[in-house]
């Protein structure tokens, strides 16, 4: 079970002259939830966006190092980012369904990726996986923006699942939701990891503690450059971290 699906080696990221991430080495295990935690600006989002080449969209960003995925280096120029992104999906902080119908939201990814087969069936399957089917099955043609925040976020998850990614990246996916919707999303994430490997960024340490199998803690040095302090089993990190900095961060004594 413990084989890794992503293997990050000596990842360094710059925005123009500013180094945002330094020498990150981490293995992302398959079918596990990996949480990235750390203070604001430590490069969690940057790390996530490297993994599916979303950083290509930022002209100033420069990424060095290897991210191996299925034995290929994501950062090599041989690979097409469009291809990578359809295999490594992403869910964002604020629910961002397209202003289309619920159905079209999920179908979008299928269509652009040239899905062969019954789009209806596939949409239904994805919505079921995202635990949204029961809520929306009678109103697939309604606008997605009419859903509640929590439902919207589940729709975004369904939309990502439809493309059948192997990895799902989530950048603070519940921070815009109320506590109840948050808990529902957390349960969903736990359930989904039989389907996909999940990497989640969260500011909420308790959330990381609740839902993840493994946790990586990031910090910034005096130059505001982010680096990874420690990574391990979530239980270990939250009950007996090896590094003092982790300890002081998770006990709220970081300054």
């Amino acid at each position, binding site marked *: 079970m413990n084989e890794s699906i992503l293997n990050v080696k000596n990842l360094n990221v710059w925005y123009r002259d500013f180094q945002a991430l330094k020498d990150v080495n981490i293995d992302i295990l398959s079918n596990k939830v990996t949480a990235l935690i750390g203070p604001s600006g430590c490069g969690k989002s940057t790390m996530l966006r490297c993994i599916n080449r979303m950083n290509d969209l930022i002209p100033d960003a420069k990424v060095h190092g290897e991210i191996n995925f299925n034995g290929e280096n994501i950062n090599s120029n041989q690979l097409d980012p469009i291809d990578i992104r359809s295999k490594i999906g992403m869910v964002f902080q604020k629910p961002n369904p397209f202003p289309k119908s619920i159905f079209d939201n999920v179908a979008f990814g299928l269509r652009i990726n*040239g899905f062969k087969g019954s789009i209806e069936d596939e949409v239904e399957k994805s919505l079921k996986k995202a635990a949204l089917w029961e809520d929306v099955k009678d109103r697939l043609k309604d606008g997605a923006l009419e859903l509640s925040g929590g439902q919207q976020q589940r729709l975004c998850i369904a939309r990502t699942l439809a493309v*059948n990614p192997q990895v799902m990246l989530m950048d603070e996916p519940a921070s815009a939701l109320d506590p109840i919707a948050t808990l529902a999303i957390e349960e969903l994430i736990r359930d989904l990891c039989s389907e996909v490997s999940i990497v989640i960024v969260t500011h909420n340490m308790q959330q990381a503690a609740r839902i993840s199998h493994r946790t990586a803690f990031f910090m910034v040095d005096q130059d505001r450059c982010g680096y990874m302090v420690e990574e391990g089993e979530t239980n270990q990190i939250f009950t007996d971290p090896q590094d003092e900095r982790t300890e002081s961060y998770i006990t709220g004594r970081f300054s």
Partner: protein
Amino acid sequence: MIETNHTFNRNIKRRQNLGKLFYVLLLLFSLVGLIGLSALLIQILRDGLPYLSTNLIFNYPSRHIDQAGLKSALFGTLWILSLTALFSLPIGMGAAIYLEEFAKKNWITNFIEINVGNLAGVPSIVYGLLGLTIFVELMGLGRVVLAGALTMTLLILPIIILSTRESIKAVPNSYREAALALGATKWQMVKGVVLPIAFPGFLTGAILAMSRAIGESAPMIAISALVYITFIPSHAMDRFTVLPIQIFNWVSRPQAEFTGLAAAGIIVLLTVLLLMNAVAVYFRNRYQVKSNE
């Protein structure tokens, strides 16, 4: 585990190439505007530069090309401009403040708002007809500077109201709440917080509205008709002409030389306009308040 009934035909190469084609198309579209603008400027400069002289600026209109100038039009424009600013800015600002800050949500406010929107879309020539009926005839002012300025005031008032409202709207509501929560009255809030933040935006809006006023000719034609004015208006009840009318006059002449004169007049007009726009851009960049958004 991972079902394999997913069959995707991603065809990435083809989609990427299509994208490149699309990009070229958009680039071409964008150049149309630029090409049009440069063609316009080049044409005017080519036609007009030879006729640009001090005569042009310091002489009154004349049938003789070498003596024709636009002194009266230039000063007429200045007269109209200052009077219009004097009338329209305070009124426009006041109306905008009322609508944004004081008006209760009721039918009359709603009506005023819709109304202002519509007024902004009314063709300028219709304002000319209005000025003609009301100021020139009904009020008996005659075809004078004051009638022109009042007409122009009505024409740009909706524009000023709308742009001022935009700049007031751009003031985040959180500032208002903060002021009120400190125990400020509504007027203290408006004076102390909203207006200072909205002011730069208001200023640019005002300048852009005034540049619109410079270029408008249709209503002025309706008001003042096309006449030779060979004097500078000395008070608000003098007759007048403005730059665009003078240019129109010259354009309408059959002789090619007058066309050149028109182009030179256009150069003068555009220069004034560009200056005002530059001032507006300056204010926009200099005083743009960074809010927390």
